[in-house]
């Protein structure tokens, strides 16, 4: 046992040095896994003991372990690199293959080709030797035929010339072209994957290990989803990919909850997650607590005492017991600084219009929901609470009220709800959310509200700071603007381009937060 650990430690030392010391934890032996060589969970590589034993019949076990570690490290260093790249590659493969399992397989194989080729092009590796002795399925045969061609080695594969020839034309080493390359890759291997599917080969794991999302930490998953939300063109695209990989994502984000009985019932609301992650891309920096003058003087530094200067600041300890100009030292005092009084960020009531004239956030990107989501995100980050009033035809029951909370999922879920009916809000609903601390009000609508006069009157009576964002320009907007012209606590934004909403909203809220720190 000790020998085994020692051997792994020694090999890992060399592999790490070869790859310029990647920040990966020490690998471990996996005594149970028999079918695949490697597994990576939360960055830790596990090597299958039985797999190495099997390989050691044909090659030096030290070289086998070294080759396997090269493969794993190369995945970490080159491809997929991060979750957003992984999701992007999967999305492109799915576009071509239109099947979840086949797309996952194609993505995995593509990442293997890239990572291994990167490794072979930059380092001396025993990886080709490992591939020469590995047990192969149809896809493995084809890929090893490709390796023979693009690495210039003999792996003992016969056949698959056409597939290998077509695959060898792709620029695997050019990261910028990966999204295009994987599409071509998927197209070429599609027929092989279909054959694999027919004979149940898709259920057999990749001998070098599957590319589970559990290799990412929960922070990496959050960051990856944030990035991916920014890259996709529609919420539907995000939803499709996230729903496909939902189980794996949940398992990676909250690995222990399955055991708590949350497994099968858990689900991600991909639409809500999309706006949540997208809003995080526009997050405001939280301003640090300001410093202010304390009024008290404290000894700051020594300066030579001169005639005419006060005696009380003389420091006898550094003056050699003498009172002589130029030799005697005195303390120079300065006013101290301390943390100032913290002014709390007010809570916010978000009024969001989800009537039929607004975009359905689940069908296409709703800038209204995104704007509201950004505002919520900003308030929550500043330790405030948010209440949501989502309205359409409120009188006919078309409204949702979420009382003040810091529960992100609940907030975004309420923001994303779409009624699609008429537009009438109830002032008593808004009033029910008011508190003694005068929360801010954030309204986002196209202003085509049937009882707009009532709302104007309400704002005129209240002292809350109001940010009103409207989409488009119409008669109602003009009425609202005219009526609110004299109110200093109401800021109105006209949005020409929908894309501007997050910027404008954040810009203004930023002012609020910054002005809140002035004394």
């Amino acid at each position, binding site marked *: 046992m000790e020998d085994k650990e020692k051997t792994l430690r020694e090999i890992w030392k060399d592999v790490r*040095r070869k790859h310029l010391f990647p920040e990966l934890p020490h690998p471990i032996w996996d005594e149970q896994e028999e079918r695949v060589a490697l597994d990576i969970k939360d960055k830790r590589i596990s090597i299958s003991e039985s797999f190495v034993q099997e390989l050691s019949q044909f090659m030096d076990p030290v070289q086998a372990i070294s080759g396997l570690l090269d493969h794993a490290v190369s995945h970490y260093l080159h491809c997929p690199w991060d979750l957003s790249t992984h999701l992007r590659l999967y999305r492109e493969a799915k576009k071509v293959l239109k099947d979840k399992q086949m797309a996952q397989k194609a993505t995995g194989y593509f990442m293997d080709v890239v990572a291994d080729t990167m490794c072979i092009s*930059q380092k*001396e590796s025993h990886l080709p030797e490992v591939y020469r002795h590995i047990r192969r399925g149809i896809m493995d045969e084809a890929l090893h035929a490709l390796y023979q061609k693009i690495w210039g080695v003999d792996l003992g594969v016969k056949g698959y010339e056409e597939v290998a020839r077509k695959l060898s034309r792709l620029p695997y080493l050019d990261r910028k072209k990966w999204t295009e390359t994987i599409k071509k890759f998927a*197209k070429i291997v599609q027929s092989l994957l279909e054959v694999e599917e027919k004979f149940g080969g898709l259920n057999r794991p990749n001998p070098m290990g599957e590319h589970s999302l559990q290799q990412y930490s929960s922070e990496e998953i959050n960051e990856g989803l944030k990035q991916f939300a920014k890259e996709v063109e529609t919420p539907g695209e995000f939803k499709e990919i996230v729903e496909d990989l939902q189980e794996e994502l949940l398992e990676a984000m909250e690995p222990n909850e399955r055991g708590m009985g949350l497994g099968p019932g858990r689900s991600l609301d991909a639409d809500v997650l999309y706006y949540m992650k997208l809003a995080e891309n526009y997050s405001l920096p939280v301003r640090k607590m300001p410093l202010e003058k304390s009024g008290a003087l404290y000894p700051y530094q020594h300066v030579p005492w001169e005639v005419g200067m006060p005696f009380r600041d003389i420091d006898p300890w550094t003056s050699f017991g003498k009172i002589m100009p130029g030799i005697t030292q005195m303390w120079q005092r300065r006013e101290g600084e301390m943390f100032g009084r913290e002014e709390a960020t007010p809570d916010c009531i978000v009024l969001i219009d989800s009537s039929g004239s607004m975009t359905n956030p689940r069908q296409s990107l709703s800038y209204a929901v995104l704007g509201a989501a950004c505002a919520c995100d900003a308030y929550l980050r500043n330790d405030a609470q948010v209440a949501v009033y989502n309205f359409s035809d409120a009188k006919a029951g078309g409204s949702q009220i979420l009382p003040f909370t810091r529960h992100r999922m609940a907030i975004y879920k309420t923001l994303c709800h779409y009624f699609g009916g008429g537009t009438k809000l109830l002032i008593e609903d808004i009033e029910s959310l008011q508190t003694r601390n005068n929360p801010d009000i954030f309204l986002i609508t196209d202003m085509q509200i049937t009882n707009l006069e009532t709302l104007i009157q309400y704002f005129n009576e209240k002292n809350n700071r109001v940010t009103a964002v409207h989409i488009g320009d119409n008669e109602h907007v003009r009425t609202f603007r005219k009526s609110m012209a004299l109110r200093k606590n109401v800021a109105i934004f006209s949005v020409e381009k929908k894309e501007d909403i997050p910027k404008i909203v954040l810009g203004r809220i930023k002012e609020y937060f910054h002005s809140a720190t002035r004394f």
Partner: protein
Amino acid sequence: MRNPFKEFGCLSVEKKELPLERIVRAREEVMGQMIHGYLKLVEEEVKDLVWLVEHSRVVKAYSAAVKSIRDLQYDVDDIEEFCGELDSSNKIPYMISGPAGIYVSALINHAKEDRIVLRLRDYQRTFHFLGYRLPEGKTLILQGDVGDFVGAGLSGGRLVVEGSVGNWCGAGMMKGEIQITENSGQNTGEWMRGGEIHVEGRIRSVGKTLFGGRIFQRGKLVMPQDLELDI
């Protein structure tokens, strides 16, 4: 003082060149030349971004295409990739289907391989004029639906369409064979002088003027009808 980079000293930073890099470089070079040739053809032939199908223009465009690919070393994979580029790439600012089809046909007719398969069902765009002047000894298999003037001026080659064709299929063909597994559009075989067209599905209409050749539908001769009586 200890050098913090000492351990890196023994590491080789030499990068090997893999065969992959040579293959990709050569491929990119060929693709660049193909795209350049096509854009030059479009520039010359389609001055106003409108291209009308006239016999003289088709002949002229084909001659220009042949001239531009004369010294090009390529294979069937390059042709397939070029079709992919025409379909979706942003390297080609405008894809005008007539000249594009003629250019692809010129590439096919002058390729080293005698049997060429193009998987067109993966593409969004419709390709016209494919199989134009396909010479004797060449077999072109098109998988998926294709546009108009497919197999026009066929010159002895064998064209198989695994799908449907548009209008004017085999227009002015001289010899050779066209097989269509599904339907064909209007004016099928117009002005054909020789050869055969076999359609497994429906023929919307047969050309009004045929100088020769035969058209079959589901194995039954439909044109010329009087010939059937003679047989």
